[in-house]
Every structure is written in structure tokens, then in C-alpha cells.
């Protein structure tokens, strides 16, 4: 049997180097037990450590690779005031350690080693590297009863001990110093996470720290674009030539090591034995390099890929260094994800505010009270969809003799649509001298609004109806708006009104008007397409014919304008059931009373 080579510093530190052989495992665990017995530890803890070390070393020997068999395993024991930590560095292919290994079935003869280690330890980590991995096992030291002076005793003990191996002390000091650097950088990194900083600047600063900590020569950090289609350069230590994007679409060629990491959702390594592919853009500058591409996730979603490497191809990252790279990248993933969440939240707030403004604007346009004429009643209805649109209606009494009915629909949603509805309304009220010739009125409105609408690439559909109650006639003119429906006793409603171009399409459009009689008992329904586009649970639209049938039934009730509007509103709500309102619904009813 080969005896492990040991280095020991008092009762603080033990380092063992041993061949990768199952027979060695037991010998190593005996050495550890002997060392810990002098600490001292109680029998239960000694037994637990003896078993954990055996299992870890068995695992390292059992799954060693052919190349790894030529290398020695290393075990280090750190005794701290409150805990013992053991690190075992192996040369296996490594494995994904579960948070808690499951106990195999009773019949299974294998698979209990990791379960035992996790059950007996307080904390187990498995750091994976390219050529080596490191299992870190920690267990609290029991507090001896009534030993408040344990710390003082330890200090005194250390002071009185003669440390023979100066080189070991030097190694240990360097290791501690390097750990301290890593830890302090990670702490700075963590505290910076709480500060809102531009992601690129943040990433570049911290990636420079990372290079120093893990002794790497270069890095490339790419983040997934907001729509998730490509990896875009965020920061790099390489020349500007690396400012290209990598497509994440499924058919993209995966020659790139970064894409392979993104697609496999696993670390992808490259070194002399697995060099970067010739098709990989990275290979043009760093052909002979070793390192890894690590995919970065935030809650299961890929947010980017970090590639880190060394220009000298023969010194691979140690397991601990790989762990630092992964930790940095994962922290960065959280930062990127938080920054994006903040931006989305801000955008949502802005949108909500915009909708509120648009909604207020929209409501301010609707007349508070509609004019009533002798023998004619007018009532209106407006129901806003979730995203406020530009529906608009109005009824204006002119010189106590006539009545102008207006319905309009500005294309688009939100504030721009509501703004144009306001402009439309102010123009309308500016030229009430034109009400008796609604066609001419539309022609003037189109000419006045054209340049603004054209510039904004918007348009308005509108319908103007001038009613002369004394003559029992009305004139109608439309600009791309759906015809109104006229009902008369015993007949199905008929569509009235020609439709020209919407306002804002052609600068010199001339609109004509149609003169019609208003039969006794007739009703006029002016509406926007949100009414006929109303959908039920089966995705069927109400349509013009559906509207006509329902209107006929409602009119048969012989209600006044307000009652007709109320019945129409109930009909619409019944038809759509619980389906959300897709578009604004507006309509205006004129009823002979």
C-alpha cells in the first residue's frame, strides 16, 4: 500500500496527496481521522469524517478517467474555530450534484455514497473544472460544554507550536490571500448589484475583476437581445472586431462555442484537445486558448453567455476558479434580469399613465348632455376598450332649428388617437356654419386636418348627419364610415349613407351628401365599427346583419332614445358575455318621440 504524502501545520491544516486507487481511500480516511482526533473531535464526528472522506475518495477513484489515473488526488483539511472543511480534488469527468441525493431502492447495491456524505455533512459543494473537480465538505464543530475560552486556548496553542514546514505555510498563506481577494471582489460585486448602473458598464468593470481573480486573459460577454433572437456583445476584453451578434434561431449553425453553450444550456470547454472550431469567429483571434463558455440564466431563461479563457493553452482553470467564473456569471445574470425588469416596469408605468391621460381626454370629449328637439330625442353610448381608442360622438343643436349628429373613429389607440379626436372636435365646432351641408363640411374638415393626419400616418372615419325636424328630412355624408341604420315601422333597418375616403387619405377629396326623409316613428342609429365587431365566446362577430336584427327587436319595444340606447347596451353586453371588449364601442340614437 502506498502511504499518502502528508503536510501538516499543527492542528490547523492537513494536506494529503495520494494515488487515485480504491485501496488508498481507506488509508486516507484513517489519516484524516488521526489528524482530527488530535483537534480534538468527539467520536461521532470522527466517525462521520472518516466515512465521508472514504466515500468521497472512493468516488474519485471509481470514476477516474484514464488520463486522471496518472495524476494524484489531493485532500486538504482546514480546521477552523467553528467548523472543519475538507476539500478533495479529483480527476473524474465530474457529475451534476443534486441538492439532496435520493436514497436508492432497497435492492440497489449502489448509489449510497453521496447520500451518506450529504446526510452527515452540514454543507457539500462540488466545484467542476475542465481537468479536475473539487468536493468541498463542511461540518460544524461541536461546542464543548463550558468552554468559553476555547478561542484563547487555540491562540495560545498556535503560538506555542513550532511550524516546521515553511513552504507549506507559504502555500497556505497564498491560498488564503487569493481566497480573500476572491471573496472581497465577490462582496464588492454583491453590493454593486444593488445600485442601478448601466449594464454594459457594470459588466465591463466586473469582468475585469474576474479576469484578475481567475488569472484569465480574455473574456467575451454576450447578452440575449430583448426579443430572444440573438446573442449581442455586451462587453469584451478582445478587439472591437468582436462586436458581432450570434443568431439563436434553431437553424443557426452552432460552430460557435458560445452558441453551443447557449443551445446545450451547459458549460462548453475548449483547449488543445478540443480546440475552437475553425468556423467559430472566436478562433480567428484566440485559436490556441483554453477556457469555457458558460450560459447565464435568470430563472431558467437564458440571458447571455460568458466565454472566459487563457491564451496559454496548457494551464487549465482549477475547479475553484471555474466556480468563481460561474458565480460571477450567475450574479451578472440576476443583475441583467433585474435591469430588464426595471425597464419593463417603467415602461408599463408609462403606458398605464398614457392610457389614463388618453382615457381622461376621451371622456372630456363626449358631450355631458345631448340636445333634445321637439319630437326628437337623442342619446349616446360609449364603452372604452382596455386600450383607449379614438371613438367620438356629438350632437349639436344649430340655431334652435336643426341638429347635427356626428360620429367618428380615429384610427389608432392611446394618446395620439385621443389627441386627434380632440382636434377633430375643435375643428367641428369652428365651422358650424357648414352644418346644413355635411358633405361640404367633411370636405373642409379633410382639407384642414389632412397635413397633420398625413404626417402622423393616421386617418379618421366620420359621419355627419344634419336633421331638419320641421321638414322631417335629414342629410347624411360619410368619410369612410359605416352607413347608419334607419328603422321605420314594420320594416328591417336599412343602411343609409355613402362612404368616401376617410379623412386624411386624399387631400382634395370632395364628399357628397344624401338627402332622405325621416318617416314618422323612425330611428337613426349611428355607430362605430367596434359595435359590429363585437365578438361572442365562439369568436363570432355581431356584424351588420346581427345588429339590424337586434335593432329591429329593440325598436319594436317603441322606447324613446334613452331606452333604445339602454336596450342596445344590454344587447351588446349579453352578446359578448365575458369576452373582453376588443375595440371601443360608440353609438348615437335619434328617435322620433
Amino acid at each position, binding site marked *: 500500500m502506498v502511504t499518502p504524502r502528508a503536510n501538516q501545520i499543527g492542528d490547523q491544516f492537513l494536506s494529503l496527496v495520494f494515488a487515485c486507487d*480504491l*485501496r488508498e*481511500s*481507506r488509508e486516507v480516511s484513517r489519516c484524516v481521522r488521526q489528524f482530527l482526533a488530535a483537534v480534538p473531535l468527539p*467520536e*461521532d464526528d470522527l*466517525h462521520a469524517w*472518516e*466515512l465521508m472522506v*472514504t*466515500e468521497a475518495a*472512493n468516488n474519485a477513484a471509481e470514476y477516474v478517467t484514464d488520463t486522471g489515473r496518472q495524476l494524484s488526488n489531493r485532500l486538504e483539511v482546514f480546521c477552523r474555530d467553528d467548523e472543519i472543511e475538507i476539500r478533495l480534488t479529483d480527476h473524474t469527468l465530474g457529475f451534476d450534484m443534486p441538492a439532496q441525493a435520493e*436514497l436508492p431502492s*432497497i*435492492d*440497489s*447495491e*449502489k448509489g*449510497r*455514497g453521496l*447520500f*451518506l456524505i450529504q*446526510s*452527515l455533512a452540514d454543507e457539500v459543494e462540488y466545484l467542476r473544472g475542465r481537468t479536475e473537480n473539487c468536493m468541498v465538505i463542511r461540518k460544524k464543530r461541536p461546542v464543548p460544554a463550558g468552554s468559553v475560552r476555547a478561542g484563547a486556548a487555540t491562540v495560545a496553542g498556535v503560538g506555542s507550536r513550532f511550524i516546521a514546514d515553511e513552504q507549506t505555510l507559504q502555500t497556505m498563506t497564498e491560498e488564503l490571500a487569493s481566497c480573500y481577494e476572491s471573496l472581497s471582489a465577490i462582496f464588492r460585486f454583491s453590493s454593486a448589484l444593488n445600485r442601478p448602473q448601466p449594464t454594459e458598464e457594470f459588466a465591463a468593470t466586473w469582468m475585469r475583476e474576474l479576469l484578475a481573480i481567475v488569472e484569465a486573459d480574455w473574456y467575451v460577454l454576450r447578452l440575449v437581445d430583448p426579443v430572444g433572437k440573438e446573442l449581442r456583445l455586451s462587453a469584451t476584453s478582445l478587439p472591437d472586431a468582436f462586436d458581432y451578434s450570434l443568431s439563436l434561431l434553431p437553424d443557426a449553425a452552432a460552430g460557435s462555442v458560445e452558441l453551443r453553450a447557449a443551445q446545450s444550456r451547459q458549460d462548453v470547454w475548449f483547449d488543445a484537445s478540443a480546440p475552437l472550431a475553425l468556423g467559430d469567429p472566436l478562433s480567428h483571434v484566440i485559436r490556441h486558448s483554453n477556457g469555457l463558455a458558460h450560459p447565464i440564466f435568470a430563472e431558467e431563461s437564458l440571458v447571455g453567455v460568458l466565454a472566459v479563457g487563457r491564451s496559454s493553452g496548457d494551464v487549465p482553470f482549477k475547479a475553484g476558479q471555474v466556480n468563481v467564473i460561474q458565480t460571477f456569471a450567475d450574479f451578472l445574470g440576476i443583475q441583467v434580469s433585474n435591469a430588464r425588469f426595471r425597464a419593463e416596469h417603467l415602461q408599463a408605468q408609462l403606458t398605464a399613465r398614457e392610457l389614463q391621460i388618453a382615457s381622461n381626454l376621451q371622456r372630456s370629449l363626449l358631450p355631458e348632455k345631448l340636445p333634445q328637439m321637439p319630437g326628437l330625442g337623442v342619446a349616446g353610448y360609449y364603452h372604452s376598450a382596455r386600450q383607449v381608442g379614438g371613438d367620438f360622438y356629438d350632437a349639436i343643436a344649430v340655431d334652435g332649428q336643426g341638429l347635427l349628429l356626428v360620429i367618428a373613429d380615429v384610427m389608432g389607440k392611446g394618446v395620439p388617437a385621443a389627441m386627434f379626436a380632440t382636434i377633430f372636435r375643435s375643428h367641428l365646432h369652428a365651422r358650424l356654419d357648414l352644418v346644413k351641408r355635411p358633405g361640404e363640411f367633411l370636405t373642409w374638415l379633410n382639407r384642414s386636418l389632412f397635413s397633420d393626419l398625413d404626417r402622423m400616418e393616421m386617418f379618421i372615419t366620420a359621419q355627419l348627419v344634419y336633421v331638419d325636424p320641421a321638414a322631417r328630412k335629414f342629410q347624411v355624408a360619410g368619410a369612410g364610415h359605416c352607413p347608419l341604420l334607419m328603422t321605420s315601422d314594420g320594416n328591417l333597418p336599412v343602411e343609409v349613407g355613402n362612404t368616401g375616403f376617410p379623412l386624411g387619405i386624399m387631400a382634395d377629396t370632395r364628399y357628397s351628401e344624401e338627402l332622405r326623409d325621416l318617416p314618422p316613428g323612425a330611428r337613426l342609429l349611428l355607430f362605430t365599427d367596434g359595435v359590429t365587431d363585437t365578438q361572442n365566446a365562439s369568436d363570432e362577430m355581431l356584424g351588420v346583419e346581427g345588429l339590424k336584427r337586434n335593432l329591429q327587436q329593440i325598436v319594436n319595444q317603441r322606447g324613446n332614445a334613452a331606452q333604445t340606447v339602454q336596450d342596445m347596451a344590454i344587447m351588446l353586453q349579453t352578446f359578448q358575455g365575458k369576452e373582453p371588449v376588443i375595440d371601443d364601442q360608440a353609438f348615437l340614437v335619434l328617435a322620433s318621440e
Partner: protein
Amino acid sequence: MKTRTQGDTLIITDFTELNTTNATWLQDLVRQSLAHTHKVVELDMSKVKFLDSNGISALISIHKAMCKRSGKIRLLGPTPAVFQILQLLSLNEVFEIINP
């Protein structure tokens, strides 16, 4: 390790550990010593201070072999350290354990 037979029981004594180094040896020993008349394999665990997962594997392998011939495995007087491990792995219910 020593073996002797008492009635239908194959008794194995004189070992202080059951681990990687002697687990296979124990399995071979049982295989070679087992006669048709044996219904029980009894291991004297009273001196065993260390049992690892490979030792456990050997015990389970013997247990399975004995079940096939309608027999069983019996652990005699396991030390507290060993009993704790058996308990941790829920094997104290699988093997017959006798505490004298």
C-alpha cells in the same frame, strides 16, 4: 474472517471493518461457504467499527441472494457507529438485527 455453521446458519466472525478493501472478499467467502442447508447468514458485527457504502453493497448483495432461497441475513450486535449508518440508510428494517 472466519466461518462456521450452526444448524441452518452460516456464521461469519472476526472482522473489524467492512469496506472497499474486504467487501468483495466477504461476498466471495459467503458464496463459497454457502450450502443448500443454510437458510441464514449471520454476521457478527460486534467488533465492526467501520462500514462504508461498499460494505453496505456487500450486505445487500448477500441479502438478495438469501431472499432468493427463502433465507435471510442477520446482523449480530452492531456497534453504535454501524447501527447509526444502517438507520440512516433505512436498512435497519431490511436486515434482521439482533442486539444481545
